[in-house]
């Protein structure tokens, strides 16, 4: 697996750095089987642009936030809650949470 450092985030992170801040990254993706017109559109545009060999394009959401909660367990539970209640629509979407400090 290759992982490239995120671009351009250094500056922003520095500004908000604090000892008990957790950064969360939430990936919201459409459930398997749910039609994804945006993904499909990108895929067809790719063909027109001459990009070959690309398939299964899916578009989702990425939500990033900072949390003042130093207990990881609690932070995860809180964000899980947040996703179920608001950030994701579980009728059509799945979510995955990454915490990071």
């Amino acid at each position: 697996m290759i992982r490239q450092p995120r671009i351009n985030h250094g500056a922003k992170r520095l500004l908000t750095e604090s000892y008990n801040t957790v950064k969360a990254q939430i990936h919201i993706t459409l459930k398997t089987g749910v039609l994804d017109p945006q993904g499909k559109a990108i895929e067809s545009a790719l063909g027109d642009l001459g990009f070959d060999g690309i398939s299964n394009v899916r578009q989702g959401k990425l939500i990033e936030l900072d949390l003042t909660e130093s207990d990881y367990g609690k932070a995860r539970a809180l964000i899980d809650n947040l996703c179920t209640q608001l950030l994701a629509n579980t009728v059509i979407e799945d979510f995955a949470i990454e915490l990071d400090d």
Partner: protein
Amino acid sequence: MANSTITAELVAEHGLDDKEAEHMIEVLGREPNITELGIFSVMWSEHCSYKSSKKWLRELPTQAPWVIHGPGENAGAIDIGDGQAIVFKIESHNHPSFIEPYQGAATGVGGILRDVFTMGARPIANLNALRFGNPENNKTRHLVSGVVSGIGGYGNCVGIPTVGGECGFHPCYDGNILVNAMSVGLVEHDRIHCARASGPGNLVIYLGAKTGRDGIHGATMASAGFDDAVDAKRPTVQVGDPFTEKLLLEACLELMATDAIVAIQDMGAAGLTSSSFEMASRGDLGIEIDLDQVPLREPGMSAYEIMLSESQERMLMVIRPDRVEDARKIFSKWELDFAVIGQVTNSGRMVIRHQNTIAADLPIKPLADSAPEYDRTWVRKETSLSTPKPATEPDIDTALNLLISCPDLSSKRWIWEQYDHTVMADTVQLPGGDAAVIRVHGTAKGIALTTDCTPRYCAANAVEGGRQAVAESWRNLTAVGAQPLAITNCLNFGNPERPETMGQFVGTIEGMTEACRILNMPVVSGNVSFYNETRGSPVHPTPTIGGVGLIESLNSMQRIAIDEAGLHLILIGSTYGHLGASLYLREIHGIEDGPPPPVNLNLEQKHGSLVRSLIHRGTVRACHDISDGGLLVAVAEMSLAGGTGVTLFLPETDIAPHAFWFGEDQGRYVLAVEDKNVEPILLTCCSENIPALQLGTSGGSHISVEESFQISLADLSYKHETWFPDFMKNTDNRSVED
């Protein structure tokens, strides 16, 4: 930053030339600091000071008994009776839209909406006039897609119907598209608000989105041509937040229903600088601002950045101290950031404090009064006097098929269906007609709205083009049965430092002035956009006219659609077969040459008044003015709109058939009337000495010219409707927002 030395380079980077720099020091009595330099630079930019255009704009007629506010306020205001007024203005957002089409166009809509509700008016309609480059240029599609979804994205969210506009293509716009947005609002006379500060001691209030480092130097950007360094200017792009705009609109109107607000001004180009400056200078007062109170989005912003930021969705107002509590209640209900950032003084100076220092201290009146004003050198371009005559002409039906499906004449449904044009439930004439009509809420009155310009005429002859743009707007209003009242205008030109461009500008103003005077339709607001050129290649002069008319009773509103059989078509006005600078020559023969059709304003007035009175008498079933593409295109548009065919005959004439059908002679209308009204109408025309000609009758499912051809309406409609969606197919599926 306040202490950095002001070098000659720095001054030049701020767009001030040597004379202006000298002048600045004279006004100030000392060297400016960096914040002051920034303020001078934006206040004296072309965009804010109108230094190249001011002299000429003064020529435009601005008065009529129904004009309440002419140019000078945030938007113009006209009386429509019953204590009500219509407030409207058009503005360009050309450069930002080229750099980032979605956000550029969206923030253009946001800006013009604020100009209207700043006056106390509730926006009731938006329009947009768009010019793009060659459709075959790869970038064009991307720009069309982004601009249209940006305009829709913003207006739809705020909930203002976008009801009309225009959209044309020409290679001269390849590097400089035009995005002109117009907004129209409704207000009671006694609720009109102005931007004149008064009452020393009154408080200066900041309302709306937090200030970030957006678009710093946007105003100076709009005052310079594009060059290859366009990428370097990118970070100045602003992102619109229509949701906040909607809250701002509701909060402002709620507060304006009281008498708490003394003065109000939106923060547009040059943000806090020009809004505070203009409010104070209109009232001939001073103003003190404490930048530490300004709500900021990013930490560590300097005074320079705060003063020049062009963050969107912000308002500045002057409020009586005893009303701040009322204001606070309303603003917090709408969950808006709000801060008292200063006060009005009688010092005549603008004093800006930041972090315990004085960041700027400038004399207001001298700075405003001595803003540069130039009488730039201008020359009038030779205009072509003869129209080329191609050796062969295609069949009329072939030409009609080509014209009706050419980019400029193709149906713009693809655009307007992305705009919510029915929200507010008062849109009585939808896009697709000569002018949109909005019912004045709760009454039987209607407001007719249109935007018009024929840039190829302006390029051929600026004076005639200026005349024609105003006349066409007047005609479109007339064709729906409205009494034309006033116009707003957006003058899109190249670099004014080039004498030829300046000559076009001067000519356009001359033509517009004459037309406004004779048609009794004054200019009440507007905007000038210079420097629309890339590497020395300017756009066609494009004076977009936004026209507003009144329909006293919606019972006498007229549409273009022929939707019943047995009607008789009557042509009003003289036909000479003028093909110079016509769409026919350009689209069919690839020729862009010849003089534009002359506009006879007195005849224009006479023919239009007759048409309007026939409409008001209830004797007309459909009416359309004749413009791009000439007579046959106009008839085809009427047929297509109503789904009913027509049978025409070519009258006896010396004019060649293609010139008769596609010539663009001005001052003409096509009427469809019932059998019993034909005679009386012809008699009236005869007695008033107005040319009128019977053209044929409606019925069937074809457009046919006797003994010449027959085209199925379904085929023609298919061609008319599919050019745009086919053109956009490849980008249609690109997600541009969210």
